[in-house]
Structures are given as structure tokens and as C-alpha cells.
């Protein structure tokens, strides 16, 4: 503790030190060492040289000096004819076109085919964060937004994978992605998630992220339907350290399509910096190279937006804006965009919420890639920006902004049913295939578990032989479908078959394809054609109602129902008989307490939960302790605290009155004062305790005696009381105001405390 006489630190900084934000570390902008989002002297100036219809130079590099990335972009991405046109356009003009709702998306997509990486970076770098979000909303390929979940657990437990996959499906995710703690468990994870994802509805695409060759084999066995871990990098040295080239990845892209499996590449800012080969270029420029490569390869989409590099990118100035900017380049290049928001980039919940908002309101093909549908500790990819812990926060953000984040609230009983069904289904498959026999205790522990720390199910070591059994036995999705059907899981068998059948037509290989209501929708049949208000994606009324249907929502009848529970108890403790019209008092030894219209009639406790009989009793005791009398009147002409107090004061022989509403808001007033200029006010009813009401009674008496007492202060720690109580308070107050009768005369109350009154 610093010496008070010689302070060496403002203690506010010590408080800030204790906040989660301070666990985040920030990097100084340093282009020479790769720590710059948008500006570096090493970034090339946009440029193109054409000779006889061929690319002779690009972004200041002669064709002869192209590295393998330049060479691939020049051959496969750039259209020389359009390049001639697009590269001659002012970057500022292109930037304005991106945010101009009157310029069609298709025209901008056409021009992007003539833009070099430096040009794309130069254009989007001119947009501020709001403009980037708007342009993203206009430029993304598919109209309807979607979302992707991670489904993993710390034990690779197939029962829990199935239950969590079914839960994710019910929340509305369009894709689910799994990976393993122990790599040889890949096949077991794949089967478990495929079965779980078939519970409830069909159409959720599924990926098992594993070693390239194994992942393709699992896909060929029919368990998975997409892949997205085909990474590309923005410098030649990073690419080769990643053990690939644009051609090896391009070949893999064709290989996946040849097996009828949807695929997107992955790239994100910061990967080159993490790998040590950034060439002093900016994060955005290197990412522009990655994205041009991907369009050149002919992949339909990209997982993009920092991804594993997002936490690093978020340490530099403008890093989060950069993540948005690279996503904009992706959709401008007409790629499906699974827009990151996966790796958790901050310990600060405020930074997390701020990070997601532009995507939530702009929409994205897959807003997260993915959202941790399981608790953070069960996320085998590492914690996501949002995990199961924050699921309800996300659902409420959707409702707040009336923005479709792709998810739908799930009722508790429905969740339990689906989890139970999924666990039974995957257990049946494991038994039918002779792989394992889960016990009833294992199953029930998983159904109710939030995460793997609570389960008594398979351990990673017990999963390994299951996984090896699937692989060695050559088990395919056909055997799994048969096993489900044999054990009576007919809808799940049908659902799983429907997903595998997608690969025959190849419809879901097109850009931004997903399955909704049993139909493939993509940028082809659900194109984003935003042209201003009223166009683009708009929620239907039924979808809006779905999003709004979060749990524990109050309405007035709910408030009255809960109040009615206290009515009988209060009736045993207190009675409020009317003894005629209340008249002005004539002696100075009284304090009048004016109660509101619904006080003890329809409402029986304060918002802090104190019985109104108790509140009145301690206030009266406070008054009588000073030798004065308390007189109670019911006011019917107003429910407003100030007017309740002033009316009471005007009826009081001492000129001092207390006004109190049923919710507990109270005021001490003087007959001589203006309505809103009271003596003391308890505005924070939810934290006002009985001792404060007793003090209120004593102080009212003190004022009546001509004293100047120390006002009663209700201590507050600055809690966000409003959010906890405002809905209820407004409904309670509406109950009060509904009972107000204009010009109603005050009633004298012959208050009686009954036998149960001290209970």
C-alpha cells in the first residue's frame, strides 16, 4: 500500500491490472518484423504489366522473378483482359463501389478477377470498420446466413460426441466439425458425430479434421461430407514449411471434388508471422495473396479471418479490422466464407462480444468456423470465440439486434430427449458392429453432462480400439445405416442416407452450399443480391419469432402468477381495511405513509423480496420509536412515488409523509416542497433492505420533529440492477397504473398486523 503522503500510483491502474483484459498482450506496430495489419514499406504498389495478352509483371515483380505464389496467381487467378480494366481504376473508386448499394455485386466480382493481391489490399484498406462490415454484407455470396459448430470432447468419447452433435444440430448449425485429442481416434469420432448429426433432422454437413490422407479416406467411407483444413499461405517459404505448394493443394481440391466431398481452403492473417516468413509484408497483403490463390485453384470457398492466427492478429493495431478486411476480400473474390470467429482472440468478454457483432449483423455464409458448441475445455481445436458457456449470450445478441446468427433457442426438455436419442443410437451402432457395449450408467452420465469432466464413459484409451476396429474392419456408412435401421433408429438411418446421397448430384459442391429444410441452397439458387433496404437477407416473421423465443421471458401474467404465490401468506400477516376517506391531520405528532393502489392488493413483495407487511411494520416502528404516530392512507389517484409522498405529506399533520410503491420504491416528502424535490428517496428498491426502511421511518419522524437527520444511504456496488429488474418493474408498475383512478380520494386504512404478522 503506497504511503498516503507520497502516492506513487493511482489505484485505478491496480484495479485495471486485475481485469481479464490485462491477460491479453499487445504488440507494437512494427512492419519490419511483420507486426502490421495495413501498412508496410515492403508491401508492393499495385501494378500490372501486360505483353501480348499475357502477364509480364504483377505488383512490381517481373514474370521472370515470380515466386510460386505469384506464378500461380498470374496463371490461374488473373484474367488479363479484366486486369487491364480493373488495375487502371482508382482504388478509392473501387472502395466506394464496394459500399455503393447501387453497384451490383456481380460487377464487383467481375472486376476482382482483374485485381492483383496488392490492388485488393489497397482497396479494402481504404474502408473503415463500418464500411467493411457493410461491404461484406453486400458482397457475401449466399443470401441466407449460416453457422458452424465444433463438436469435440477431451476424452474422444463417442457417446458424448453423438449427444453433442445432436444438440448442435438442434441449435441450427449447418455444419459441424470434429477433431481428436488422440489422432488414431479419428474413425470413432467420425462415426459418432455422423450418427449424432442424423438425430432430429437431416442436412447438417460434417467434417472430421485429421491428417490429409486419413481425412480423405474417412470421407470416402461416407462418414463426412466436407473438408476445410486444406491450408494455404501467403509466402513461398511458409507454404513449403507447411509442406505443400499451390499445386499440391490445388490437386487436393480436385481430389475432394472427385469423391463428391465439399471442400474449402483455410487461410488467415498471422500464419506467415507465426511461421517466421512474413517478408516484412502486411497481414492484409499476405492474406490477399492467399485468397487469390484459392480462387485460382477453383475451390468454392475459404475458411478465413485469422483462424489460428486470429489471436496474434488481434494484438496489433487495427488487427480486428484487418480480420474483417480479409474476409471482405474473400467474398469479393466470390468465395464462400467461413469467417473465422473461431479461435478465442481475447480474455476480455467485451472484446469477444465486439468481435462477433459486425458478423452477426452483416451475416456470413458461416459466421463462426466454428462456434464451440461444447464447453471451452472440451474444445479439441482450442477454445472458440464463443463456446457452450456463451451460447445463450449469442442467442440473446441475435434477439437484441434481430439478426440471424444461424442459431435457434433450444428448449430444455427437447435437448434432453435428443441427447438421449443420440446416445442410444450410437450405442446401438457400436453394439451392432461389435465394437463396444456401453453400460446404462455410461449412457445416463453422458446424457445429462455439460462436459466430459462429468461423464463416466469411454476414455481416450478405450476409444482407440473402437476407432481401429472401424478402420480395420472397412466399416462404411452403409454398415452404420444398416445397424441403425436394424435397431429401430429408422429416421436416423434415413437422415444419414440422405446426407451421403448429396454427393451423387454434386449440388453441394457449388459455392456456399448448405442444406436447409431438405434442400441444397447455395450462391446459385440463393444468391445475395443486396441493393439496399428491403433487399438481401431479411428474416421472415416466423424466423424472427424463432430467434425471439429465448427462455425465461417475462410477461404480465407471469408477474401476477408469481405475486399470487405470496398473497395467502400476506393475508395471514396484515389487513388493510378501509375506514372512510382520509382527511388532513390536525396534530403535528403524525407521519402519514401513503401506499400505492396495488400495494397489498395485487402485489405483495418488494423487488428485493421483502414482504410488504414487514416493510410497513419496520417503517411504523421507526416512526413510533421517536414518539410519533404513523397513519397509513391508500392513494388511488397516482402510482408515482413523488406524488404518493407529496400527497401523504399534505395529509400529514406534521407536513411530513412517506410515499411507497409496492415494488419498494419509497420517498420522504414535505408538504412545502415541489413534487420532484423530495427529502429522501430510495430509488434502488432491489437492494433496499428492511433496516433501510426502518431508518426511513426514523428519519421521517426526525424531519417532523424539525431535525436534520443524516439521510439513509442504500449502499450499491454499481450492479446492473436495471437489466435484472427493468422488465419486471415495468410490468409491476403497469399493474399499479392500471388501478389508478383519476381524482380518487385518499382512503384511511385501519392497518392491522395479524397473528402471522411476525412470521
Amino acid at each position, binding site marked *: 500500500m503506497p504511503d498516503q503522503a507520497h502516492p506513487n500510483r493511482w489505484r485505478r491502474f491496480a484495479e485495471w491490472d486485475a481485469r481479464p483484459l490485462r491477460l491479453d498482450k499487445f504488440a507494437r506496430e512494427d512492419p519490419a518484423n511483420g507486426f502490421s495489419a495495413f501498412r508496410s514499406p515492403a508491401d508492393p504498389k499495385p501494378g500490372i504489366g501486360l505483353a501480348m495478352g499475357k502477364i509480364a509483371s504483377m505488383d512490381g515483380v517481373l514474370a521472370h522473378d515470380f515466386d510460386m505464389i505469384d506464378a500461380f496467381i498470374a496463371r490461374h487467378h488473373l484474367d488479363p483482359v479484366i486486369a487491364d480494366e480493373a488495375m487502371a481504376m482508382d482504388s478509392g473508386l473501387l472502395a466506394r463501389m464496394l459500399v455503393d448499394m447501387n453497384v451490383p455485386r456481380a460487377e464487383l466480382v467481375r472486376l476482382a478477377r482483374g485485381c492483383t493481391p496488392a490492388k485488393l489490399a489497397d482497396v479494402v484498406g481504404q474502408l473503415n470498420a463500418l464500411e467493411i462490415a457493410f461491404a461484406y454484407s453486400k458482397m457475401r455470396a449466399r443470401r441466407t446466413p449460416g453457422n458452424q459448430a465444433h463438436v469435440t470432447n477431451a476424452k474422444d468419447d463417442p457417446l458424448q460426441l453423438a449427444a453433442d452433435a445432436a444438440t448442435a444440430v438442434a441449435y441450427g448449425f449447418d455444419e459441424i466439425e470434429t477433431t481428436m485429442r488422440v489422432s488414431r481416434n479419428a474413425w470413432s469420432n467420425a462415426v459418432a458425430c455422423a450418427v449424432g448429426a442424423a438425430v432430429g433432422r437431416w442436412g447438417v454437413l460434417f467434417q472430421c479434421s485429421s491428417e490429409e490422407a486419413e481425412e480423405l479416406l474417412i470421407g470416402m467411407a461416407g462418414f463426412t461430407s466436407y473438408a476445410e483444413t486444406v491450408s494455404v499461405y501467403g509466402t513461398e517459404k511458409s507454404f513449403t514449411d507447411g509442406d505443400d505448394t499451390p499445386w499440391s493443394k490445388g490437386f487436393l481440391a*480436385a481430389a475432394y471434388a472427385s469423391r463428391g466431398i465439399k471442400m474449402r481452403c483455410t487461410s488467415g492473417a498471422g500464419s506467415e508471422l507465426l511461421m517466421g516468413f512474413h517478408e516484412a509484408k502486411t497481414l492484409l497483403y499476405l492474406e490477399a495473396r492467399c485468397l487469390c490463390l484459392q480462387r485460382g485453384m477453383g475451390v468454392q470457398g475459404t475458411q478465413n479471418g485469422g483462424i489460428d492466427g486470429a489471436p496474434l492478429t488481434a494484438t496489433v493495431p487495427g488487427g480486428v479490422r484487418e480480420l474483417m478486411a480479409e474476409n471482405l476480400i474473400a467474398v469479393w473474390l466470390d468465395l464462400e466464407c467461413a469467417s473465422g470467429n473461431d479461435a478465442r482472440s481475447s480474455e476480455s468478454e467485451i472484446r469477444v462480444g465486439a468481435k462477433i457483432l459486425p458478423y452477426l449483423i452483416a451475416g456470413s455464409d458461416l459466421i463462426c468456423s466454428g462456434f464451440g458448441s461444447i464447453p471451452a475445455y472440451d474444445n479439441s481445436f482450442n477454445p472458440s470465440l464463443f463456446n457452450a458457456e456463451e451460447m445463450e449470450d449469442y442467442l440473446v445478441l441475435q434477439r437484441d439486434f434481430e439478426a440471424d446468427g444461424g442459431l435457434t433457442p433450444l428448449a430444455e426438455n427437447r435437448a434432453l430427449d435428443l441427447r438421449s436419442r443420440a446416445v442410444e443410437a450410437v450405442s446401438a451402432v457400436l453394439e451392432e458392429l461389435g465394437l463396444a457395449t456401453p453400460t446404462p450408467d455410461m449412457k445416463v452420465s453422458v446424457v445429462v453432462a455439460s462436459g466430459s469432466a462429468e461423464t463416466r464413459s469411454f476414455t481416450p484409451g478405450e476409444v482407440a480400439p473402437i476407432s481401429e476396429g472401424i478402420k480395420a474392419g472397412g466399416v462404411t456408412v452403409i454398415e452404420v445405416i444398416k445397424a441403425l435401421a436394424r435397431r429401430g433408429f429408422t429416421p436416423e438411418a434415413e437422415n444419414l442416407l440422405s446426407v451421403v446421397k448429396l454427393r451423387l448430384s454434386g449440388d453441394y459442391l457449388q459455392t456456399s452450399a448448405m442444406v436447409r429444410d431438405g434442400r441444397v441452397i447455395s*450462391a446459385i439458387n440463393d444468391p445475395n443480391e443486396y441493393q439496399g433496404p428491403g433487399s438481401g437477407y431479411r428474416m421472415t416473421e416466423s424466423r424472427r419469432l424463432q430467434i425471439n423465443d429465448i427462455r425465461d421471458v417475462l410477461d404480465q401474467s407471469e408477474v401476477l402468477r408469481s405475486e399470487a404465490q405470496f398473497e395467502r401468506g400476506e393475508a395471514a400477516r396484515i389487513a388493510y381495511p378501509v375506514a372512510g376517506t382520509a382527511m388532513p391531520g390536525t396534530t403535528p405528532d403524525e407521519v402519514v405513509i401513503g401506499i400505492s393502489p396495488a400495494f397489498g392488493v395485487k402485489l405483495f413483495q418488494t423487488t428485493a423480496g421483502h414482504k410488504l407487511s414487514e416493510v410497513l411494520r419496520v417503517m411504523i416502528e421507526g416512526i413510533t420509536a421517536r414518539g410519533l404516530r404513523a397513519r397509513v392512507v391508500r392513494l388511488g389517484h397516482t402510482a408515482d412515488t413523488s406524488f404518493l409522498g407529496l400527497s401523504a405529506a399534505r395529509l400529514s399533520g406534521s407536513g411530513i409523509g412517506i410515499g411507497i410503491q409496492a415494488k419498494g420504491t419509497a420517498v420522504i416528502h414535505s408538504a412545502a416542497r415541489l413534487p420532484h424535490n423530495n427529502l429522501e428517496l430510495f430509488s434502488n428498491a432491489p437492494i433496499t433492505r428492511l433496516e433501510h426502511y426502518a431508518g426511513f421511518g426514523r428519519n421521517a419522524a426526525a424531519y417532523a420533529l424539525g431535525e436534520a437527520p443524516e439521510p439513509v444511504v442504500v449502499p450499491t456496488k454499481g450492479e446492473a440492477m436495471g437489466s435484472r429488474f427493468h422488465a419486471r418493474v415495468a410490468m409491476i408498475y403497469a399493474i399499479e397504473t392500471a388501478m389508478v383512478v383519476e381524482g380518487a380520494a385518499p382512503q384511511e386504512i385501519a392497518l392491522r398486523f395479524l397473528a402471522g404478522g411476525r412470521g
Partner: protein
Amino acid sequence: MTKLSVADYPLAETRADQIRGKRGLALGDITLASVLAGEVTMEDLQITPRALLDQAEIAADAKRPTLAQNFARAAELVAVPQDLIMSTYELLRPGRAQSKDALIERAALLREGYAAHAIADFILEAAEIYQKRGLFTYRF
């Protein structure tokens, strides 16, 4: 025959009767009942070159030429066995081939054995760039 357009999409809805698996089984014949009767194999659930070329036409009509080219390359790979696909991928990774010759040979094998002309050209292009960029070096 006129080319397919975006109006023909999705093919599973507009021309379900023409969509078939590798052995010729039609989409509509693949039902839970036929699976349970043992009439469906994994081959029946494999995409055909025809379907990929159809999707390539749709992608081209949607002004996505590079996606269309990828579908065309994919159509050539449908008949290529998994082992050959994986070993070709491996060969294309940096430092796996010790010289251009290995890639040229592989391109020839795919061109002659599977009529995979676009794939072969793609591999030859890689050979040329790898040579220029010194990627035929020892890595591990």
C-alpha cells in the same frame, strides 16, 4: 446438346432421374429399403464424371470459371484409384520429387492411363515452376 445453366440447379431437383452412381443405380433407387436389401454399395454412392461436368457447366454459367475448371479436373480423377491419388498428391508436395522427371512421368501416367489431360497439364505446370523455384531439394 445445350449446356446446363443456373436454371438447372439443383440437379437433384431438376433432373433427379438422370443422376446415377458409379454402377448406374439412379438416385431414386437408393432408398433405405434398397440399402437394407443389400442392393447398395459404396460405389453406388460415388459421384460420376458426368455429374461433375454438369456442375462445371453450371459453375461456368454462374461466371465461376476457376471453379468450373476444378470440377473438370475432378471429373478426370473419379476413375483414378485412391492410392494413385494419394501418391500423386505426395509427389506434388515440396521436395518429394527429386527432379522434374518424376512429375513428368506421373503426368504421362495419368494422361495415358486415365485420359486425365487437365490434371496432367496441371502437374506439368507444377514441374516447370518447381524447377524454377528450386523445390526439388532434399527436405527430410
